[in-house]
Every structure is written in C-alpha cells, then in structure tokens.
C-alpha cells in the first residue's frame, strides 16, 4: 500500500481551502439571506400583529364612540320627548284656557244677545201693550175721560211743594194746559178757577190740545210739569215694566 504524502498534504490543504471558499461564497451568503428573509417575515408578522392590534384598538374606540353616540342620541331623544311633552302640555293648557275664555266670551255674548233680545222683546211687548191700550182707550170718548181727570190735576197741583206753587204765581209766567181734546170755554174757566184757588193767585194759562195724550190733562210750566194723561200713564207703566224686566235680568245675572 502506497500513500503519497505530498498528495495527501495537498489534498488536505485543498479541502480546507474549499471549506473556506464555500463558507465564504456559498454558505454564509445563503444563510444570511435566509436569516434576512426570516427577519423580514418576522417583522412583517410583527407589523401585521401591530396593525391588527391597532385595528382592534380602533374598532374598540369606534365601538366606544358608537355606544357614546347611542347614549347621546338616547339622551337627546329623551330630552326632545320631554320638551315635546312640555310643549304639548303648555299648548294644551293654552288651548284649554283659550277655549275656556272663548266659551266664556261666547256665553257672555250669548247672554248679552239674549238680554238685548229680551230687552228688545220687552220693548216691543211694551210698545205693543201701549199700542193695544192706546187703541182700546181710544174707543172711550176723550171728552168724558178728560173731564174726570181735571179733578186729579187739581190734586196733583195741590201736592206740589209750596215753594213751587209760589214761584208759579209770583213769576207770572204762563203755564200751558195740554189736553187730548180741546177744552170748551166752561172747562177752561173751571180750570182757571181751580188753579187760582189752589195757587192763591191768578195765573196766565194757555190751553192746547194733543191727541196723542189719548185722554187726560197735563200742566207744563217753567218750574213744574204735571203729566196727568193716559199717554203719560202708559209711558210710566212701560217704564215700570222695563225697570222690572231689567231688575229681574240683573237679579238672574247676579244669581
């Protein structure tokens, strides 16, 4: 068995050199690029993990904001509902008050219209009654009706205050005797005597007739006015009726 020492030495050196060459040009670059790729992959995974964590954090933040929006929306909705309820109650209260006021106004207007209509009806009724009475009394002869009233005129003049009767005489002014039918001379004379006797003095008297009196006699003076005629009686009755009706209506309103 022959072993060439030179060849053994050279081959040993060759293999060692080849180890260095391949380590330098093959294994080191390849392992470096593999490590670099692994590092890049790990960095990519780390970045992806970070992005995922960031996305989850963003999602959580969005969920929190969404819940906040929901709560805010609920709060605003509740506030709007409360405001709407308050406005509705206020409007309802206002409408109720307005309706009550309108009803009261309407009732007052109805009452006023009713009172006015009642007054109108009363007026018409009084006028109708006066007209009926006037037509009925008109059938009585005015002369005979007036004759009876001269005595009542004397009583009325006598009932005047003393100062008034004195002024009628002392001032000398003419008094006016108004009758429904003209008085005859005797009746005028009787009137002058009656007044002179009651007033204790002569009085200048002017006689006139007024058919609207229906019947009766009236004295018109500057200081006194005595109405003793059916027209005056009817007007007085009508006024009394009006006064009674007004009093009755007022009493019902106060009740």
């Amino acid at each position, binding site marked *: 068995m022959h072993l060439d020492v*030179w*060849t053994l030495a*050279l*081959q040993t050196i060759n293999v060692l050199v080849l180890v*260095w060459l391949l380590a330098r*040009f*093959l294994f080191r670059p390849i392992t470096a*690029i593999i490590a670099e790729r692994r590092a*890049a992959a790990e960095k990519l995974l780390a970045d992806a993990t970070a992005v995922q964590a960031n996305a989850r954090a963003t999602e959580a933040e969005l969920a929190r904001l969404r819940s906040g929006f929901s709560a805010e929306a609920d709060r605003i909705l509740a506030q709007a509902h409360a405001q709407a309820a308050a406005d509705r109650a206020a409007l309802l209260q206002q409408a109720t008050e307005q309706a009550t006021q309108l009803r009261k106004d309407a009732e007052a207007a109805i009452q006023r219209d009713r009172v006015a209509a009642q007054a109108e009806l009363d007026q018409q009724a009084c006028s109708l009654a006066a007209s009926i009475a006037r037509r009925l009394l008109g059938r009585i002869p005015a002369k005979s009706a007036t004759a009876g009233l001269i005595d009542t005129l004397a009583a009325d003049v006598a009932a005047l205050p003393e100062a008034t009767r004195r002024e009628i005489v002392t001032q000398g002014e003419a008094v006016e005797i108004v009758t429904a039918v003209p008085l005859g001379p005797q009746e005028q004379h009787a009137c002058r005597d009656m007044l002179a006797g009651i007033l204790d003095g002569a009085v200048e008297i002017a006689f006139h007739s007024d058919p609207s009196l229906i019947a009766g006699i009236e004295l018109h003076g500057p200081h006194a006015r005595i109405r003793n005629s059916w027209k005056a009686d009817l007007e007085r009755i009508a006024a009394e009726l009006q006064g009674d009706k007004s009093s009755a209506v007022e009493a019902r309103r106060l009740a």
Partner: protein
Amino acid sequence: MIASPLATSVAFTLGPVPVTTPVVATWGLMALLAGGSWLLTRRLTLHPRAPQAALELLVQAIEAQIRDTMRVEPAPYLPLIGTLFLFIFAANWSTLIPGAEPPTAHLETDAAMALIVFAAGIYFGIRSRGAKGYLATFAEPTLLMLPLNLAETVTRTFSLVVRLFGNVMSSVFVVGIVLSLAGLLVPIPLMALDLLTGAVQAYIFSILAMVFIGGALAPPPADSNREKAPA
C-alpha cells in the same frame, strides 16, 4: 481505469513537489464549486428565483440534517459538513466527464478528508467540553475503556477512508474493466449505478462525519433535546 487503484500519476511537479492528477482534478472541482457559488450568490434577493431557491433548499437540507444528527445548532458545522458533502458528491459525479477520474477514487483524497474530520472532532470536542473534558471522554464509561476508545477513534477514521475509497474506486475500476471488455454501451448501467453509489457515499461520509464530531461534543441539555426532538 484498469491500472493499480493505489497508483497515482504525476501531472507535473512544482519544484520538489509532485502534483498528481487527483490534486489537479480537485483544483478543477474547487474552481467549479467556488466559482459556481460565487456566481449564484452574487445577487441574492428576498424573492429568490429558481437557482437561488435550489441553493437555499440545499443549504437548509444540510442544516436540517446537521440539526437532526448532531442535536446542535448547525451554524458552526455547516461549512465543513456542507463542503465535504458537496465535494464528495461533485468528485464522485465527475465520472460523467469523459476522461475525468474522481479524486475520491484515490486514497490520499479520502485520507485527507478523514484527517480533517478527525481533527475537527478533536477541535470541536475541546471547544465544547474543554481539553480535560474532552480527554475524559476517552475514559468513559470506565477507565478500562480507554484503549478501546482510543483505538475506536483511529479505526473509525480509517473506516471513513476505506469505505469511501473502496466504494468509489471499485465502481470506477469495475466500469473501466467492463468498458475495456464489452464496448461502449454496456458500462452505462454500471455508470448509473456508480452515480447512485457516489451520491450515497457522499451522504454516508457526511453523516458519519456528523456522528463522529457530534460524539465529541458535550451532550445538549435535556430541555434542548425535548425541544428539538419534534424537528
């Protein structure tokens, strides 16, 4: 090749140093491997094309084999183991080149690689265990085993030499004999078998180198074994 398998022809001499044909063939393989590596690794990118992907696959396969066999991180051992595998593989397959004779068919080349593995075992053993610890491994499990352990260290190195030399030399020798006897096409199946044998021998030499070097290293921690066992 029908001459004596132990004889080496001198290609030329450098002064007193005779340069034999296996040395010249080794230089050629070194130029091919180193130049090819330089060309293929000039422009490595994170998005590899087919050549780069093939190289990465090869390197990662060697790393995985080192990790599985030696139970250690492969980085310190990758250049030696990877170079041994690639060189033996390329040398054995150099028979595809007409007229080329694989340097591994000569005893000196195999002996050189076995010596390197032997020295690497001592180097990595001392680096891992310390000189005292490494020497103590020869007395394990008892001091009586010291002669046997020493003999084993030497004989397993010889076994590396003889195994590779015998397989490659015999394949080349058989192909040469058949070629001289049976003409042009008959040796082709034997040459194919020679390629298979060459690849297997490259793998076996690398595995045995890993086993011998790994046996010199300190045993990994139990936790490390459990973690690496699934890989």
